[in-house]
């Protein structure tokens, strides 16, 4: 437990004087281990420790809390401010329809999320249409049809196997049908797959999405930085949604992705049902990462 470990480090400090550089360094070793065990990328951890260390040294040791707790508070507050603004909403288009494009690696939860977003935004008064832009995965259409039905929300399937075509036709038809919100579910792909990343770039050009959301598995490890950077560099991300945080993953990928893209995390997925979507709350994520 981090509080206990820092307690050991600081047990010699008895509530007077200032936090010495030596003591802070020792504390930062423990913080570094905690962040790495939480899956924060090791380079992001380095930068983070450097900035927090300089802030903690020289802090007056207050009588009311232990020095260990004081350091944790500095670290926690810094994490919260880095993780960013609370509950950044999905930005709606000035003139409808709003088009949300979901992208990410294989199996991170995009299709399930499409239904969750439809459910949430429908409750907020929108008329969502789901678009089946995954034309490759076995039974992808069937899967989307079933989860869409749980909302319920209509699905546009298009005919043909060209994902960009499907997206373009859907957006074109949306206005005529009075749908003010389109959620594009794309097929999972690797950030290093040039052909498939290019497909997304072409889809972006064809439909001008209001929001491109990177969907990332909450248990992602050190690789989160590579993935997020590639998607942001090649495509441009507006927001991030982390999934599968209903387990015991510490979720350090949140900090990695935020640090490398600067984009806000908007929601977290917390289960397999259509209602299992929560707003992203930095305080909660910070505590979770610190363990």
């Amino acid at each position, binding site marked *: 437990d981090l509080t206990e470990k820092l307690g050991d480090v600081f047990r010699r400090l008895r509530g007077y004087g200032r936090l010495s550089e030596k003591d802070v360094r020792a504390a930062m070793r423990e913080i570094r*281990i905690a962040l*790495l*065990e*939480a*899956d924060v*990328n*090791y380079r992001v951890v380095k930068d983070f420790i450097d900035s927090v260390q300089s802030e903690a040294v020289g802090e007056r040791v207050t009588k009311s809390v232990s020095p260990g707790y004081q350091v944790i508070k500095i670290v926690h507050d810094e994490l919260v401010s880095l993780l960013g603004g609370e509950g950044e909403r999905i930005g709606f288009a000035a003139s409808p329809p709003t088009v949300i494009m979901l992208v990410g*690696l*294989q*199996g*991170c*939860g995009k299709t399930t999320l499409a239904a969750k977003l439809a459910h949430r935004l429908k409750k907020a008064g929108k008329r969502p249409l789901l678009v089946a832009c995954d034309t*490759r*995965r*076995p*039974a992808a259409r*069937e*899967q989307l*049809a*079933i*989860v869409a039905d749980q909302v319920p929300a209509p699905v546009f399937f298009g005919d043909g196997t060209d994902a960009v075509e499907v997206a373009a036709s859907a957006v074109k038809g949306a206005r005529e049908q009075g749908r003010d919100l389109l959620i594009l579910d794309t097929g999972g792909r*690797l*950030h*290093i797959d040039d052909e498939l990343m290019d497909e997304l770039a072409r889809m972006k050009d064809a439909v001008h999405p209001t929001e491109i959301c990177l969907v990332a*598995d909450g*248990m*992602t*490890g*050190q*690789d*989160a930085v*590579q*993935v997020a950077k590639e998607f942001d560099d090649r495509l441009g991300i507006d927001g991030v949604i982390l999934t*599968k945080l*209903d*387990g*015991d*993953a*510490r979720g*350090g*990928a949140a900090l990695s992705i935020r640090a490398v893209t600067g984009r806000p995390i908007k929601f977290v997925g917390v289960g*397999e049902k259509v209602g299992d979507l929560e707003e992203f709350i930095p305080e909660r994520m910070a505590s979770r990462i610190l363990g």
Partner: protein
Amino acid sequence: LRGRARIDDDLFEELGEILISADVGVAASERILDRVKSRVRSNGVDDPGEIPRLLQEEIEEILEAASRRLTAPEKRPPGERPRWERPEAGEGADEVPVTEASMAAKEGTGGPRVMMVVGVNGTGKTTTIGKLAKRYVDEGQRVLVAACDTYRAAAAEQLQIWADRAGVEMVGSHSGADPASVAYDALSSTVARGGDVLLIDTAGRLHTRTPLMEELRKMKRVLARLHPGAPHDTLLVLDATTGQNGLSQCRLFHEALDLTGIVLAKLDGTARGGIVIAAAEELGIPVRYVGTGETIADIAEFDPRSFAAALFS
């Protein structure tokens, strides 16, 4: 690492970063580097260029040891039974070696080899079963697959497509059916049709959900009752992009089900899947296969040497 003049703390710190960046984890990396340091001392190594090779060998040995552990059943403490097992079941369970070569030699066991595929959501279980089915078919085995994910949207439809691609029969039921009953029916059908291998697809589930883990334990008991020794394999599919939570997954799935191996999927990305090193070292679970893409041919038997080498390339 090339410009290193001597063996010092900086060198080991840099090696530590390589391991951490590969998702080996802090604790396992420290233990592994400590062992390398003591080998350096005891062998009197003084050339820093030797250290990466020593580290690679250490990792290789950890991975090899895990596969050896499972092929030597006498290493298991006497009288220890897997937690899922009931007293009357599975006397033959321990004696089935877990190499691919043994698949062809199933005569020793009599009846089909049953392989259960488990793991958290979205790791690649269903796709892996399609690939394994094709692989065993190509080896001349008669293979069936069981659609025991009766929960997730279009799970059976997805598996059916893979079964068709592999040229194998799928046994399923309706959505919402009890997974253990479907497994039971699938095994009966496999035995009736003289099948050599039955691959069982299960629904993704978080290891922290006890009732869902119990559902898998029940499936094992049901299979063992019908055919003592089944399931001969319980494979955990791990996503190579997963971080330290992968170790938690290994621990809890292993505790509940006694895993016989890991399939490390999505190794065609940039993640290196170092968590399997921690799993081998702490739990002795071997990696059996790696998934390297989304087509039916994208699976290979795990090779500790090339895996260890890839960490440093």
